[in-house]
């Protein structure tokens, strides 16, 4: 339902290679897939009204719960109005009512409502928590205050951060863990939430039903910057998702301009690589988010700021101001040109 909101942009070099690959494969709607890939990262869920709403449905779980919510709201709305009318009637009349009021209103009515509710609720619960052995597996690990994401951990093990790319209409099992405190994984538009508890692995099976851009957020209070721990969710057509997975496995894009090359050197010599990985440049670090495709993400700092060079530069220079309590120190000792080049380089990684 978000499709009409995605604008068609001029293709970029990276996408052009994909378009060629695309033409060789069979796809139900190649044009749609192509479009979705082209516009990936162009628009942040921060700019979309209702991107984090349980009422803006884009997943099987959210869909079933929406129906339940709707019927419960209507039903309990009627019950509420009914009780208020009874209060009014009781107020107006002077004749005592019989004991049957209490029997019917206090016992039969709630029991009826409860039984109906439990049947509906349990059927929805069973339907939404069904595990699918063929589901794609994605590991999501919560950190204070960002998300580490590994696609298909038993297969290609593609590591990314703070942005979840999902195929439409395909069940995905998320294995949720936490590295430090309790977090909670919640994408309201797609499914209910599930806590990420240190020392445990909680599984949540979700199925996206609509393509588009959505927003998820940590729902369990996790410390100082809990409000700043969100992430982008992009639901792609199945075809585009496969292509994205294939394409993104590679190494980071090469730095092609002098300022970008200089930026890469700053990255390496300033110690960024101790925590951050950029595949093909500096590998192995796992303490911070993977930056291999930072520039292609829709937002910066775990779904909190629009991704542009200004924000990246500000982030590097003063992390602690933008996200108090984050593990990363502020790199305010970089010289002006170093900061400019580094931010330009990071934004160029797509």
């Amino acid at each position, binding site marked *: 339902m978000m499709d009409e909101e995605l604008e068609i942009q001029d293709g970029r070099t990276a996408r052009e290679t994909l378009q060629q690959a695309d033409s060789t494969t069979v796809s139900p709607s190649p044009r749609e897939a192509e479009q979705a890939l082209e516009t990936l990262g162009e628009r942040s869920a921060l700019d979309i009204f*209702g991107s984090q709403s349980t009422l803006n449905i884009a997943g099987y779980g959210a869909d079933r719960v929406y129906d339940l919510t709707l019927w419960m709201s209507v039903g309990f709305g009627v019950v509420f109005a009914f009780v208020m009318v009874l209060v009014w009637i009781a107020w107006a009349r002077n004749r005592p009512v019989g004991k049957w009021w209490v029997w019917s209103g206090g016992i039969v009515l709630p029991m009826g409502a409860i039984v109906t509710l439990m049947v509906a609720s349990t059927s929805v619960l069973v339907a939404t928590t069904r595990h699918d052995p063929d589901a794609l597996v994605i590991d999501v690990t919560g950190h204070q205050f960002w998300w580490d994401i590994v696609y298909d951990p038993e297969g290609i093990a593609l590591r990314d951060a703070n942005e979840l790319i999902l195929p439409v209409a395909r069940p995905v099992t998320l294995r949720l863990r936490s590295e430090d405190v309790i977090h909670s994984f919640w994408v309201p538009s797609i499914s209910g939430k599930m806590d990420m508890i240190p020392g445990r692995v909680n599984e949540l099976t979700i199925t996206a039903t609509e393509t588009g851009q959505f927003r998820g957020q940590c729902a369990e209070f996790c410390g100082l910057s809990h409000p700043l721990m969100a992430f982008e969710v992009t639901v792609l057509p199945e075809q585009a998702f496969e292509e994205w997975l294939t394409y993104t496995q590679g190494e980071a894009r090469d730095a092609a301009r002098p300022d970008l090359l200089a930026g890469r050197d700053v990255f390496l010599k300033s110690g960024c690589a101790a925590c951050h990985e950029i595949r093909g440049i500096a590998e192995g670090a796992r303490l911070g988010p993977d930056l291999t495709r930072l520039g292609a993400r829709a937002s910066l700092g775990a779904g909190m700021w629009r991704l542009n*060079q*200004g924000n*990246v530069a*500000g982030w590097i220079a003063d992390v602690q101001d*933008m996200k108090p309590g984050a593990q990363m120190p502020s790199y305010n000792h970089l010289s*002006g040109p170093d900061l*400019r080049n580094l931010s330009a380089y990071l934004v160029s990684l797509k």
Partner: protein
Amino acid sequence: MRRIRIFAVAVILTCLSAAAMAWAALRPGPGPLQDVAMTVDNTLDAVASWYRRGPGNRRPDWQAASHQIHDGDPDRGAQVMIDYGCGACHAIPGVTGARGSVGPHLDGFAERAYVAGVLPNEPGGLVRWLVDPVAHSPMTAMPDLGVTEADARDMAAYLYTLRGG
């Protein structure tokens, strides 16, 4: 008579609360009800930005004339500053989320004599700086954000509304 009065008050209150809820729940954008909603929005935005900026000094200022950018739209300027990410480095009153402390605080920008210490603080100088800071100050940490001249005008127009406390 008393009953009618109570009834009327109840109806009016219900309508008011329904209107308030509709306003709160509506999605911004074109639509039949939206004109009303947007009017309320704009009023409240004004209140909100007053709340953010504080009451401040609203005296007419001789500098205002020299800072007038005729084709700059301050409202749009505040919006594009969000899109370029200015707020990550600068604290800019009235721009949502702009509270960075990397670069200078831009409160009272209209009162400054120089832009970044290199260009005189006039509309032309400010716009040139925003479009290409590195050209004017090679060692600056402020990146070239690829600001178009049109955007720069709007941003400058907004910055000249900041007169400080």
